[in-house]
């Protein structure tokens, strides 16, 4: 990635003011750059950028998963921001844009920030989130000041490229960058495969891990180090400000789709690589780093909406289904209870009587009645309704289940009596048979056991 700095033409401006810079040129793949380099890989620049961004995105997605699960998302953000003063100092000391030097500088100041946060939270009453926020902005502020000082003192020329650390310059990708990214990606994958069990244990339950003798601090540091390495490699590509999104977004997106850790890691890697590649392709004429982040965000929002189980739509559907089921059960119970004095005969029940029995919303009651008619449970005579023989059986079942739950919750489970009415489900499937039998006896003794439910049609073989 050494060529990354050298390749930046002097014609590009290095203003001392960040805002001015961000309005001029920020990480675009400009046409002039596409012919800049002779290549070993024979890829066009745009392919190289796509490939490099994908490698970075994949690696960031995998290591980011552990950071997110360990609730350390903000640590990655702080690490990225806090690396800026290190980059500037390393440049000032070495007076070169050598990537190794700059990366070491980034790592050192990132680690300094982490140490500072750890010390402040341990030794004072400052909470971790506040400490992270303070360290992030302080280091970033220092970084901007140093950046402006360095660029001014060198009068532009030699400090070229330092500014790309802010928002990234993926357009400067060369072959050696690709090799570096591939090496880092492979290393990260290897470490995660090798230490999968240990990472999983420490991420889920560090105290239990320590009771088994695992060096949780070292394992935790290993996880954070993986995040740190990927972050710092990614800085020249997406920049200090947006790198955290590469770490957090893929894992947060993948978590919506799966409940398995191994699937989550694979999915986060794929999502990270995919959104980075797609972001590069969509970025024609736009700043690349931000486009990648926006693509990732779009994918996240889409998942938030559509993911099965955890998605918003899935939850709305599940909730609606539950409401309708409760509504159907309540309607049948209303019919049963209104008919109860006259059973086994059934009578016509007026719509208004039904409505008064429960606090129905008119549209819901109408809709449920229509459904029940279609299912052959009730029949309509003008504005009154009567249970069919099938409906009578179903209504008795619903009433029986509900009453058994009520007794169970009041007598056996000791729950508050006013909460009983809420959850009615098939009591037979959830409770042990002995309890069900006892409940039936209780209902029968009180004369409240819906009798019709017990009527089983005679076996056809007996006829």
């Amino acid at each position, binding site marked *: 990635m050494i060529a990354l700095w050298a390749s930046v033409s002097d014609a590009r401006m290095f203003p001392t003011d960040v805002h001015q810079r961000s309005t001029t040129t920020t990480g675009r793949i400009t046409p002039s750059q596409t012919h800049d380099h002779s290549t070993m890989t024979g890829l066009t620049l745009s392919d190289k950028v796509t490939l490099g961004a994908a490698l970075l995105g994949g690696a960031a997605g995998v290591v980011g998963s552990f950071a997110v699960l360990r609730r350390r998302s903000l640590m990655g953000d702080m690490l990225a921001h806090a690396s800026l003063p290190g980059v500037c100092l390393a440049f000032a000391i070495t007076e070169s844009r050598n990537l190794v030097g700059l990366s070491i500088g980034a790592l050192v100041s990132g680690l300094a920030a982490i140490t500072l946060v750890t010390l402040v939270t341990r030794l004072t009453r400052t909470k971790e989130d506040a400490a992270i926020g303070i360290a992030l902005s302080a280091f970033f502020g220092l970084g901007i000041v140093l950046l402006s000082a360095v660029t001014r003192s060198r009068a532009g020329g030699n400090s070229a490229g330092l500014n790309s650390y802010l928002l990234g310059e993926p357009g400067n990708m060369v072959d050696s960058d690709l090799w570096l990214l591939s090496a880092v990606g492979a290393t990260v994958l290897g470490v995660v495969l090798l230490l999968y069990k240990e990472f999983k244990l420490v991420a*889920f339950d560090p105290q239990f891990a320590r009771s088994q003798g695992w060096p949780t601090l070292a394992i935790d540091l290993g996880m954070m180090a993986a995040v740190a390495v990927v972050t710092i490699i990614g800085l020249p590509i997406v920049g200090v400000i947006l790198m955290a999104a590469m770490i957090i977004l893929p894992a947060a997106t993948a978590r919506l789709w799966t409940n398995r*850790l191994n699937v989550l890691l694979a999915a986060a890697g794929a999502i990270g690589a995919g959104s980075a590649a797609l972001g590069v392709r969509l970025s024609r004429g736009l700043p690349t780093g931000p486009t990648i982040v926006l693509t990732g965000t779009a994918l996240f929002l889409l998942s938030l909406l559509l993911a099965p189980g955890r998605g918003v739509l899935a939850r709305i559907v599940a909730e609606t289904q539950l409401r309708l089921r409760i509504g159907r059960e309540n309607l049948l119970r209303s019919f049963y209870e209104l008919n109860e004095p006259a059973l086994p005969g059934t009578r016509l029940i007026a719509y208004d009587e039904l409505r008064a029995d429960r606090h129905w919303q008119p549209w819901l009651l109408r809709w449920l009645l229509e459904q029940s008619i279609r299912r052959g449970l009730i029949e309509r005579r003008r504005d009154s309704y009567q249970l069919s023989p099938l409906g009578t059986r179903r209504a008795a079942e619903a009433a029986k289940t509900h009453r058994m739950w009520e007794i169970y919750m009041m007598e056996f489970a000791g729950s508050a009596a006013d909460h009983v009415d809420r959850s009615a489900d098939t009591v037979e499937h959830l409770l042990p048979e002995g309890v069900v039998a006892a409940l039936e006896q209780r209902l029968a003794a009180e004369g409240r056991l819906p009798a019709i439910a017990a009527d089983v049609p005679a076996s056809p073989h007996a006829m």
Partner: protein
Amino acid sequence: MLPALEIHDMTVAYHRRPVLWDIDLAVPEGKLVGVIGPNGAGKTTLIKAVLGLTPLASGKVEIYGRPYRQQRRLVGYVPQRESVDWDFPVTVRDVVLMGCYGRLGWFRRPGRAERQIADRCLEQVGMTSFARRQISQLSGGQQQRVFLARALAEEAKIYFLDEPFAGVDAATESAIVNLLQSMRHSGKTVFVVHHDLQTVREYFDYVILLNLRLVACGPVAETFTPDNLHKTYGGRLTLLDEVAEAMRQRERAR
């Protein structure tokens, strides 16, 4: 015979403030031990200090006559249920398998043998049918059973349970008590941080009464006395009521 757990002159401090003073006790093997005391008495700290999770300011802890560090394989641990994120993307069986990690050591993955152990432990706590569930779908009692199964998978001789009855249903509580008693019958020593004074006599045969310092440690019949309870709970009125209730229960049991 060596005591299962021996603590000498142990003092533990949090933020330079001592939370346990000069603890000195020894518990023989094969006991079901209740660790009893008011909130903030240092019950959890005692367990964490024994397990090396909290540094000792002074003193030493021995498991079967040797430091904990050398005897880790003999110890199983059930942390408080709230100490982990129950939305973590793992299945019930994954969690139980973690009990085998200590034996497996670095890099080795759990194999068929470990899966069989995990399944057996799940059966012992009555959670076999939940093996493939994601852990966020469990109730509080089920979570506690899973944690217990994970500790069983450690195949230890001494177990430390931190408030296993907090927020669990009555069925789970009695299932856990039955399991603990059968563990004791097979020669294990089990320490349980416990809150409910009324059930102490029923559940345990040994108690450690704790309130920043050790009040008493010994068999329930001799140690769980009104005098010792008064020393443990001091003048806290509501707690004194509980003690009175516990005493009534004791009279009835006689």
